[in-house]
């Protein structure tokens, strides 16, 4: 019961609709921000939202070891449980843990063929069938177009949705609709782009592309003490 409640009350629903995924099958989503603003916690919230809906999430990190990623999940879930007064944390964990798989790579050792090889191992042996992939720490340089295109094909073939974090820099150029420069050359591959940007002491969440956020919707705000999206009045 509390799982359903958490799903319903998740502010992410405001971006993606009440029950559907924010992304279509084979779709790409991005969480864009400068370093230290809160990309990873938001990515973990997106992952947890899927996990609560018993979707299998493959979390790929190119920055952190497995232990640290687990700590992120612990922290974010604990904050969510605290915010919504969930007492049965252990049961919640036990329910979602079988649906999460973490892979950690050294950034220089990561490649799409390698990922595909790992995915094949997992699926062929019926170990884990990912429905959502979240990739944290992939460098979005000039060379990223090709691997992203290859990944798009794989995502479509396997009916997966893929979320990325993208680190931006202070002085980069801004494209149409406020699209960040780092993403301009690959923006066509993305269905949803969410930007985090600090405004005074808060972090605002702005949808740069896609999503269902109504134009008169007040901005979503990340609570910097819990790194959760603040629960706002629904329209």
């Amino acid at each position: 019961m509390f799982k359903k409640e958490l799903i319903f009350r998740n502010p992410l629903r405001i971006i993606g609709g009440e029950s559907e995924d924010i992304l279509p099958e084979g779709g790409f989503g991005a969480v864009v921000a400068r370093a230290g603003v809160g990309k990873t916690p938001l990515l973990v919230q997106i992952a947890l939202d899927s996990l609560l809906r018993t979707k299998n999430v493959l979390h790929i990190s190119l920055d952190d070891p497995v232990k640290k990623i687990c700590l992120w999940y612990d922290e974010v879930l604990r904050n969510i449980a605290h915010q919504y007064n969930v007492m049965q944390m252990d049961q919640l964990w036990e329910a979602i843990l079988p649906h999460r798989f973490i892979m950690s790579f050294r950034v220089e050792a990561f490649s799409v063929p390698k990922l595909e090889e790992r995915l094949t191992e997992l699926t062929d042996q019926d170990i884990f069938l990912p429905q959502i992939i979240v990739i944290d720490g992939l460098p979005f340089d000039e060379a990223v177009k090709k691997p992203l295109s290859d990944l798009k094909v794989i995502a479509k073939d396997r009916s997966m949705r893929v979320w990325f974090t993208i680190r931006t820099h202070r002085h980069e150029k801004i494209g149409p609709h406020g699209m960040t420069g780092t993403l301009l050359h690959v923006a066509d591959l993305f269905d949803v782009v969410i930007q985090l940007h600090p405004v005074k002491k808060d972090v605002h969440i702005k949808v740069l592309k896609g999503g269902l956020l109504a134009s008169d919707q007040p901005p979503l705000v990340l609570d910097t003490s819990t790194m959760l999206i603040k629960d706002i009045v629904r329209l």
Partner: protein
Amino acid sequence: MMENDIRKVRNIGISAHVDAGKTTLTERILYYARRIRTIHDIKGKDGLGPTMDFMELEKERGITITSAATYFKWQDHEINIIDTPGHVDFTIEVERSLRVLDGGVLVLCSVGGVQSQSITVDQQMDRYRVPCIAFINKCDRSGANPFRVIEQLKEKLGHNAVAMQITIGLEADFMGVIDLVAMKAVYFDGDNGEHVRVEDIPVDLLPEATQRREELIDVASMFSDELTEAALEGEVPEKLLISVIRKATLTRELIPVLLGSAYKNKGVQPLLDAVISFLPSPSDVENQAYTMDNDETPVTLSCDPQKPLVALAFKLEDGPYGQLTYIRIYQGTLARGDTIVNARTRKKVRVGRVVRMHADQMEDVEAIPAGHIGALFGVDCASGDTFVSPGTSLTMTSIHVPDPVISLAIIPKDNKARVNISKALARFTKEDPTFKAQIVEETGDTIISGMGELHLEVYLERIRREYNADITTGMPRVAYRETITRRAEFNYIHRKQTGGAGQFGRVAGYIEPIRGEDFVFETRVVGGAIPSRFIPACEKGFKKCLKKGTLLGFPVTGIKVVITDGQSHSVDSSELAFQTAARGAFLEAYSKAGPVILEPIMKVVVETPPEFQGTVMASLNQRRGIIVGTQDEGHICVVEARVPLAEMFGYSTILRSATQGKAQFTMEFTMYREAPRGVVDELIKKAMEERKRVA
């Protein structure tokens, strides 16, 4: 004589992954400190084995099982050192060592790097907030890469690790180290590297040494404005740099990393210098005891030999001269002839022989002052007991002792073996709190339980060898538990009237699941419905029921009992009547409360070459494992999973054959989880067969 200036004492532990070379390192340390005259190597040609690995079994297997305390002098300092085991199954030994030590040396292999066991040991050091330095050993080995290991210390363990040295040559060409503080090259001459030769840095290594020194100063500057200023001015005094690194090491904000090869006799003496420079003296560490009243208020102990005694017995051994008790003195002085009190039993004990240990040899001393480690003879106590001066009512925190997760039956072949087994078990259970033994009333079987297959195997070997007992063993059994999943009410009347005094008691209330506790008892009875003198009997009655659940006879855990009402009789009510009523109430409610079987889940970490990653994951998956994640580290891949213990028997053999012997794994208990229906059905079937056999 013991060192009087406590600032010149170090109590250190050496912890590492198995085969990282810590026993060889300890052997070299004792050699250079002139505590031993010759060097023996693990599984060496001389068949003697190192001094610290004194048990025959350890010598044969090339592993260290028992912590052996020893002391030696280095420069004008006195160092107490404990060699600790590397297998996860023996971590109670490691944990005990860390509890009583002030600093640690984390030994890592420069080829293997930070392996899963290093992570476990590091977590233990972290639990007891033990400051440590790292020693990257085996720099002479093919594939040695100490700076990769330093990166792993940062990435995998999250340490702020910084190199204090760089190597002169590497692998087969490893010749010595460059000290980045003194900016000198250090070579180790003589047959056993006993002559330390300090030279100028070879010209070809100067640029690298300068760069690494700058990195060291950069890291250290974070902890001192004075050092930052000195660095900006271009002149960093050696003394200042050392004191800043020491300060940061003591707070665990920095880990200085030393390099060498113990086997090739290189780098050990600078490591000892670093122990003195960077690890804390007993006076740098704050230790707490607790008052023995209900509040258990923490009291900070003072490392003052004049104050009343507070000491912790952290290890027992049964030697040829009776029980030897390893003891750490936190406050006061323990002297021969003193009368001390065991805080747990409140019994007075007269101190006979006081000794300092050197592996399996000993030296008699008059007294052990605060901050030191020593041993006592002829004192009857259990591991973890606190000793205090008469009139002092303090206890040290009890050492965290996990519950055993695996058990097996041992069957003696003859009567002589039966007698010897009982002697052996009496000793082992006293020495090792994670090892337990009991006799099952129904079957008469002796059951031993512990922390893993290897843990039990080692004790079985010791029973056979040291006690000459011929035994056979049953199949290992998992320590299942029972618990309830929902609230259920009870209202039970116990009434018996069969002539003479009758029995009467009624208890009403409910039971409900509770997390994180075995048993909680609460009474909300008002108006004397149950007289207060019978409440403890009710609690006792419920508690007795927890020993054996009615589902399959496993111990019951995670249950809260609340009594809300009851009834008594002025003549017929008694403690026995209410105990029996509580039992009836428990049985009434338990079956309604959705009882389930819990099984122990282990955290399993497998390190494998990447080409076997899929095979390893499949092998864990087949064992009902949930794979938490995989970590790709280039030459090696780490797979972490949660697997039921019941599925892990014989896994080492299976893993070996599936990966051509190239993968290894560690396993430790993590939690209890509800067992699936299939497992429970199987257990029910087995229990029925067992009942038939007994009948």
